[in-house]
């Protein structure tokens, strides 16, 4: 019988701990497929900081480092600077990357660290039970914005891809989503491009992936995907914000 679908070699054969309907599984798979296609699993070090994906060290087949909250880009910098011939990626959530780790993110980007950052934006702190993230949309209800995020009290969300696209050291800043087959294919192409950039020493590449958190949004997986499509994408438009290889704004 012909095999039509199987686990990527770069993913370990273990059960994932993610909630039903969570899109982390899809993104893990895309990263692993890219490692398989490029044949780089044995030359890659992944860095996963605190957040829902903190235990991704058990899932990716490459060597893995668990980093303190927000510090993955600094840890990745240490790995890459001492091993420039290895592939290094971080896999970070929005609270991690855009709140507690903003300094590490912005400075790794502006230095043009030759690493890949996979940024999961689901507008909420998932692991701690659904608090407001720096990406939580105005009006969005979370545990710590029980009446909806009021920008007068809690400030405005940060658009990470747009912000980082202003930095000279950034080779690629692209926002993708995993709500449909077409978007998932786009997302994989972006991740592949980010790893290719690293191979060609182009600098810092970030792929922001709009994702869902059905558990903490209080929605079914299908309704969560609907919300991603109807509420998140209009606020966080998909697209390439910087591509220095294709002729970006630097």
């Amino acid at each position, binding site marked *: 019988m012909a095999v039509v679908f199987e686990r990527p070699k770069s993913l*370990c054969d273990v059960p994932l701990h993610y909630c039903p309907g969570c899109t982390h599984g899809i993104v893990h798979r895309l990263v692993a497929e890219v490692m398989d296609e490029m044949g780089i*699993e*044995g*030359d*890659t*070090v992944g*860095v996963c900081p605190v957040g829902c994906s*903190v*235990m991704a*060290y*058990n899932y*990716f*087949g*490459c*060597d*893995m*480092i*668990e*980093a*303190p909250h927000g*510090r993955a880009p*600094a*840890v*990745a*910098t*240490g*790995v*890459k*600077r*001492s*091993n420039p011939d*290895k592939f290094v990626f971080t896999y970070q959530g929005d609270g991690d990357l855009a709140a507690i780790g903003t*300094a*590490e993110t*912005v*400075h790794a980007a502006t230095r043009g660290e030759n690493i890949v950052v996979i940024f999961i934006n689901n507008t909420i702190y998932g692991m701690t039970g659904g608090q407001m993230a720096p990406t939580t949309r105005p009006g969005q209800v979370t545990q710590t914005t029980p009446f909806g995020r009021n920008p007068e009290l809690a400030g405005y969300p940060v658009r990470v891809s747009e912000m980082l696209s202003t930095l000279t050291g950034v080779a690629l800043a692209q926002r993708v989503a995993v709500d449909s087959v077409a978007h998932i294919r786009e997302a994989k192409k972006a991740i592949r491009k980010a790893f290719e950039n690293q191979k060609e020493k182009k600098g810092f590449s970030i792929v922001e992936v709009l994702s869902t958190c059905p558990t903490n949004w209080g929605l079914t997986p299908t309704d969560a995907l609907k919300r991603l499509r109807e509420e998140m994408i209009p606020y966080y438009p998909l697209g390439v914000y910087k591509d220095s290889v294709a002729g970006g704004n630097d």
Partner: protein
Amino acid sequence: MKGNEALAEAAMRAGCKCFFGYPITPQTELAAYMAKRMNKNGGVFLQAESEIAAINMVLGAASTGVRAMTSSSSPGISLKSEGISYIAGSDLPCVIINVERGGPGLGGIQPSQADYWQATKGLAHGDFHLLVYAPASVQEMVDMVIKAFDKADTYRMPAMILADGLLGQMMEPVTFPEIEQKTHDKSSWAANGHKGQREHHIINSLYLTPEELERTVVERFAKYDTIKQTETDAELYMTEDADILVCAFGATARVVKSAVNEAREMGIKAGMFRPKTVWPFPVNELQEASKNASQILSVEMSMGQMIDDIKLALNCSKPVEFFGRTGGVIPTPAEVLAKIKAMGGNK
């Protein structure tokens, strides 16, 4: 050679491949020295955006098995404490330099030893220790950096050089010893790409099962027990017949040695005990040094922190007095001598 520069040169000779730092007085010459030489010598010098980033860059480099170091001064070490706890919890070797200045808060920029408790007892959250060396001269800074890299690799744990602004800024002649490059095999744990030839390596300090976390901590403490037996080091100066034993570490010990010499000239049987390792604290060495003493005096550039370890080591069997200056004020030999005289030592 200036103390801070000697630390940097010694680190490079000891095989340090990566230095990550952030500017802070009074240790900045160390980073400046590294910036001139490190990249030319095939190593990595990188000025980080923060102390926090610097220690996490060390975490990343150390995870791949290379020798890595960061340096700072007191307020900067506080910022690094999170990363140091992760490094300890992940069993990674590295070297951390603290050229202490006065605190708390922003404090001052003059020499201090007020980070003794921080370095030896409470550097960050969780059950763990660092190896902590306390040099008293520029030569000792050189020797201890070389030793710190070796022991950090041997025990897979962070090691600290607890210096102070006086030593960092001091110029003294130094000789760099021939270094016997011991090879530490890190292939069983380093995360530097498995090449398809082994299981993937995981550098991690997260254990959600309490029994599993307990096991890792207990194993680490078994290692600490070995270190307490084998790695203590101290200088005993005129202790054989000493009636008043003066204890001091680091630059303060140089002041104390002058005071002890003057006391001896006056006929007071004074001696000096100087721990070179402050964790592990040289308990047996102190017991030996104090065997004929009726009184102990701890002299520190703080309000009195090492004095706790002295009392514990002696089980409070002898009276322990304290003299110290803090905030960046360096005690003088005359002040220490006056304290020794006031204790009324036997002639």
